[in-house]
């Protein structure tokens, strides 16, 4: 099930909240209820995946328990053994279910025949994020960051439904430590409701409309094995639409997940922070998928880099490897590997201060970041390197393609308003306005906003509901990677 669906909005969400707060006198029953709801949330619509998913979940909880027990009884070697098993299990499951076809395809290409045929496997929905969360859980048990806990606590953390399918990746201690002490934290509940509605609107009204533009244009440039030239302006429109779509998609999911968590009394860290305002590629990735980058930094880069960055050769290699892995994590395709390499090159150049800008040249910095990121998105969005090459040619007019055709007008006419709204909300207008309101509490605008704000949000919620009645929401990009 996904958040932007009528079933979730009209059945699950209110029911979850009602029963959760009906048991506000006991946190244990509340947690059991959330575990139960998470199981139903996952199973709903994809019951076939549930068995594998819950199997891996239970094994991870068992391993986490064993690691903690071994650490507590000073059996460090045993604990390390369990930890290694947990990594092998999670990475192995991921490799087997997600990358086996990719490995098979490439091996067959190298040995020039079809000798290897292991068959195709499908990855259960949400496994991509779950694997990372499970590894960090076991790692935190091993490093004693996760201390004594009940089985319910472990189940609750690993299956917490708002973050179950596509993050944000939050640590056990961050989640458990963020629970409000109040039975019912009205302020968190209110902020959560608003946050959820904003996320829903971003998804249904902006990201899904942009998805139509980018999907259609990228698909036009490649149908089956045949590449089609598309006009330069259309290619740019498709790329810009995708760049905005992926941001709004991720931002919307994070807003909804964080909003639901807030409604349940849990305050979680931000996952997106206006990345297109970044002045360097490194900053962009620190603002784009914050929890994912933090995870790779904490659980991948740091264990690799034992010299704390003092050995520059080692640092370069580590960052390069990390970005290749991040690329592969996004999908079993060479385009993602090259996307990772592309980003790593600029991050390394910035780290080694080989790309340096004067302070007053912020416009050039923005152009540089946008150019690097947009080139990266072409690699990210295209289905193979050939299509990526053709798309680059289309962008630059090197395919003997036209500058413009009627489709550009069609898309601008049909989606122009959404594109403009999207562009506006790439900037932190809401944040600036909120800060201004806090600093000017007596202003007339603030007083008027007390009435206008709820009306606008109710309007947005109803419009989203209407759209969901009429059309199904497009799947989240990070759910279908």
């Amino acid at each position: 099930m996904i958040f932007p669906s009528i079933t979730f909005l009209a059945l699950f969400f209110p029911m979850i909240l009602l029963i959760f707060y009906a048991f506000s006198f006991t946190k244990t029953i509340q947690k059991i209820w959330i575990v139960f709801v998470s199981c139903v949330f996952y199973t709903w619509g994809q019951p076939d995946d549930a068995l594998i998913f819950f199997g891996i979940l239970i094994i991870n909880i068992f391993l986490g328990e064993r690691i903690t027990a071994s650490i507590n009884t000073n059996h460090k070697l045993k604990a390390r053994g369990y930890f290694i098993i947990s990594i092998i299990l999670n990475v192995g499951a991921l490799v087997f279910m997600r990358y086996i076809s990719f490995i098979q395809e490439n091996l067959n290409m190298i040995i020039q025949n079809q000798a290897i045929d292991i068959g195709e496997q499908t990855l259960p929905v949400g496994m991509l994020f779950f694997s990372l969360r499970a590894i960090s859980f076991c790692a935190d048990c091993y490093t004693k960051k996760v201390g004594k806990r009940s089985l319910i606590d472990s189940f609750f953390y690993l299956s917490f439904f708002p973050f179950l399918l596509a993050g944000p990746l939050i640590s056990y201690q961050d989640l458990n430590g963020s629970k409000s002490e109040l039975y019912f934290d009205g302020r968190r509940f209110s902020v959560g409701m608003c946050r959820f509605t904003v996320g829903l609107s971003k998804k249904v009204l902006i990201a899904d409309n942009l998805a139509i533009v980018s999907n259609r244009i990228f698909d036009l440039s490649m149908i089956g094995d045949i590449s089609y030239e598309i006009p330069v302006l259309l290619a740019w429109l498709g790329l810009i639409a995708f760049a905005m779509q992926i941001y709004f998609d991720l931002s919307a999911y994070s807003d909804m997940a964080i909003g639901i968590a807030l409604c349940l009394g849990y305050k979680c860290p931000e996952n997106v922070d206006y990345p297109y305002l970044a002045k360097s590629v490194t900053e962009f990735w620190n603002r784009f998928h914050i929890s994912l980058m933090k995870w790779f930094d904490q659980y991948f880069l740091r264990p690799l880099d034992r010299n704390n960055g003092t050995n520059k050769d080692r640092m370069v290699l580590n960052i390069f490897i990390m970005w290749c892995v991040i690329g592969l994590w996004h999908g079993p395709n060479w385009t993602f590997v090259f996307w990772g390499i592309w980003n790593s090159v600029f991050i390394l150049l910035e780290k080694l201060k080989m790309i340096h800008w004067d302070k007053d040249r912020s416009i050039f910095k923005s152009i540089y970041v946008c150019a690097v990121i947009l080139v990266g998105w072409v690699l990210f969005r295209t289905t193979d390197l050939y299509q990526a090459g053709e798309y680059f040619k289309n962008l630059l007019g090197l395919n003997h393609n036209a500058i413009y055709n009627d489709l550009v007008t069609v898309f601008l006419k049909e989606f122009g308003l959404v594109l403009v709204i999207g562009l506006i909300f790439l900037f932190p207008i809401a944040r600036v306005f909120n800060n201004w309101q806090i600093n000017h509490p007596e202003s007339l605008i603030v007083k008027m906003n007390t009435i206008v704000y709820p009306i606008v949000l109710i309007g947005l919620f109803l419009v989203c509901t209407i759209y969901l009645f009429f059309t199904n929401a497009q799947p989240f990009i990070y759910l279908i990677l």
Partner: protein
Amino acid sequence: MNQFFLKKNIYAVVLSIILISMMIFYIDEKSDEIVAILNSCLTDSDHQEAGMVSKTLEQEMLSIEYYDCFIYAYDWIQNFLNKSEIRDFSYIKEKSGFLYYGSFYEKEDEDLLKFSKQLRRLKEKAGGDTSFIFISPPEKDSSALVLLENAKIISKSDRIQDEFLLYMQYMQIDALDLRETFKNSEYLYEELYYKTDRHWTTIAAFESFKAIVDKLCVDYGESLDSKYLDINNYHVNQYDNIMKGTIGEEIGAKYTDLDNFILITPKFDSDYLWEYTRNNGTKGSQQGPFEDSLLMLDKLNIKTGSMETPYEVYLNRINAWDKITNRQNPDGLKILCIRDAYFSPIAAFMMPYCSELHLISPFDSEIDIERYIEENDFDYVFVEYYPGKITSKGFPFFNDGKEVGTE
């Protein structure tokens, strides 16, 4: 700070009320499906049914009681956003309210030359005594000034029609291009097509019937009584706002205004026998005057939510096989028409000139058309397809790849 959070508190209270109301309403509407999912989860080992029902529950909202209210609201928002595409270009709504199927990508080209060769061989099979005519009605969007006119999103029906008619000429098959009839017609586009359906109106069918009869007289020397061509010899009854076509129904009946439906019935006496085989194999017959034998008047009272339309009044829109006998004119023409749904009203109007009219829809039947023609001695064989139906399914005969002239 309190002022800052007051607005959020107000919103949270209102949204909570909305969510709880939605939950009560949803459980009330969908309780059966929810129980089915839970039952399936508990009893079925493979949970296939649960998956299926929950997916349907997610996707299928048409049965929700106040669905039409949402349609109105959706329409308003679409207008506000100045949008014409609906559901990722699946449908397009013109400013005038006309609905079209959208097709963003061009579909793979059909082998039109092959189809034309098959038609030629069918003509040869029919023999020299049987006249063979391909009737080509225009598709709804071919003459419409659709918003996406010059973009690829518009269907390519005109191009298919032009190309196929060119092949007809090449194969020496006589053809009637009804686009010309419509161009010269006194009727407006809005009178020739429904807003909510892809079919033409009864008026358009009547105009086409006149064009066919005219062709038979001019090109084939038939002396057919012109009184049946005069609309004054017919009752023309308009039923306001009863027609909700298939596109309208798919999107939501209230998304666009309902169409008016015009029923044309003769003032003169008639006595027909209509025998038919439905698409599901059911056989049946009706007989008597025009209204009793060729019409299904109960289709004028179809309620919203059904995929049936009043277009089915004439000969049930489409059957696998039909045979209509004119008991008042045993010496009339004996005609076979291999056809799609566009031909049904024409067939009804053609009957005064016919002794027998046979109709076969290759899309809905597996009748051996080659044998059927061989076993019957027809004066005319018509093949009538609108461009969207010029596909391999419409040409199940002489599908062996042999060249023309082998019959």
